[in-house]
């Protein structure tokens, strides 16, 4: 399995992110995918299933006919936001070795994590566009609770999304908020979706290993759909899914 040796680190004001050097990219189009996973204390009890979901999502993405056109970044968050790895080609990810055990703890900086995902995608997307690459963005946020620790607000997130659309450098941006165990916070997450300008809110309901396995399929199908839309120039469709 090839190991990543060609990463660059990019400063975006309040945080940094890492990404494969643009001169190492051999395709002309890329979908920048960011998977953001909640590891607050409340996911304790199903953290192993969450980890398997991440691994299966990556495996599913690797099967896409457009696998070479996908760059994936994975974040986890609780009180802080952690970059598990920056934007990498799928063939540079070892899903068995690159994802350490999740250790749930802390409270929920949901807005900061979403902001981090979108802002990094916007910045890296701009770098790609400046070198004539075609790029679009897909951000998937998986959370089980309301924000209670962020310094960012939904309106700031909405501003980032609006700037991406206004600049017209990227072929599109799609954001999917997925609520797990979200019975008690469904209304809140719906409000966040609206206030943050996110595209979709998908409620998974109560967590079960089977549903998280299905979630992995939803994630990889969403990624594939976004990548196809970049090729065809049509808007990305969210896969129909029932949990």
């Amino acid at each position, binding site marked *: 399995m090839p190991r990543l040796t060609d990463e660059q680190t990019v400063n975006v004001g309040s945080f940094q992110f890492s990404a494969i050097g*643009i001169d190492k990219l*051999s395709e*002309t189009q890329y979908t920048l995918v960011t998977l953001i996973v909640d590891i607050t204390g409340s996911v304790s009890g199903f953290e192993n299933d969450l980890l398997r979901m991440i691994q299966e999502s990556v495996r599913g993405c690797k099967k896409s006919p457009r696998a070479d056109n996908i760059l994936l970044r994975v974040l986890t968050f609780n009180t802080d936001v952690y970059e598990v790895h920056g934007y990498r080609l799928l063939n540079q990810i070892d899903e068995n070795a690159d994802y350490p055990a999740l250790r749930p703890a802390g409270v929920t900086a949901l807005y900061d994590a979403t902001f981090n995902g979108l802002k990094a995608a916007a910045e890296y997307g701009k770098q790609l566009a*400046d070198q*004539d690459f075609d790029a679009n963005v897909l951000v998937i946020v998986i959370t089980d609770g309301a924000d209670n620790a962020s310094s960012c607000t939904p309106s700031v997130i909405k501003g980032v999304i609006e700037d991406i659309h206004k600049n017209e450098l990227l072929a599109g941006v799609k954001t999917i908020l997925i609520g797990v165990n979200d019975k008690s916070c469904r209304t809140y997450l719906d409000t966040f979706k609206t206030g943050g300008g996110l595209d979709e809110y998908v409620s998974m309901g109560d967590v079960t290993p089977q549903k998280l396995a299905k979630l992995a399929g939803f994630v990889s199908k969403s990624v594939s759909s976004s990548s196809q839309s970049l090729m065809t120039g049509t808007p990305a469709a969210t896969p129909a899914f029932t949990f």
Partner: protein
Amino acid sequence: MFSIDTFLKGAKEPCEDYILAGSEPAPHIILSDGCSSERHTDVGARLLAHALKRYAIDEQALMPVYRAITATAACAETLRLPEGAMTATLGLIRERGDSLWAHLYGDGIVFYALKGEKTPRWFRVEYEGNMPCYPCYLLDRETKKLFEERDRRAITGDGYQAAASLFESVVGETVCLLPTMMVQYVGIASDGLGSFGLSVQEVLTDICQFKGAGKRLQRRMNRVLRDYAVREITPGDDLSVGVLFNEEMFGESAG
């Protein structure tokens, strides 16, 4: 030392342009543009390009174009393709010794930039009545004689004389030599580059704003075509473009 990038886009089905490229034994690009008024020239263009690769590049044979068209004619007969299927131009750029050679058999466009230059220099070979001297005419004595008697070729361009030596060899072939150590890139294109309704100068200036590394020609072409489409400008013909980039010099300033 050289990287290679090519671009191909059909304006119709089937695409009658074809392009292939390689690095061994030396960097080279071959393109072929089939005549749209003859049948199955999409097949003929592909056969011709591969035949030229064999004789000009792999075997470095004498009279490679003649060998290529003869081989293609034999293939076409075996496949029972109509005679007109071989009616296609050929273009070739390659490194040989300390020079870059560009050959056009028929019409087409060659462009290049010297070290530090942003705007490409270029020339275009056209034929009166848009009837180029196709390589397959070498097999037809009467038609070959006709072309020998009348020079219906016209060369236009901008600044190409700065470093390029141009001459015509056998009937219908235009040859251009460039010194390798002065050139940051050299490209070749089918006449589809002139089918946008814009001047060749304008199109080449837009295309040659290459950025970054890797497939910089493909990315640039995609970007230019998309920007043109917004302005409702589309190519009226198939388009094939290939560029050899001198990586030791590309992007350096003139000083």
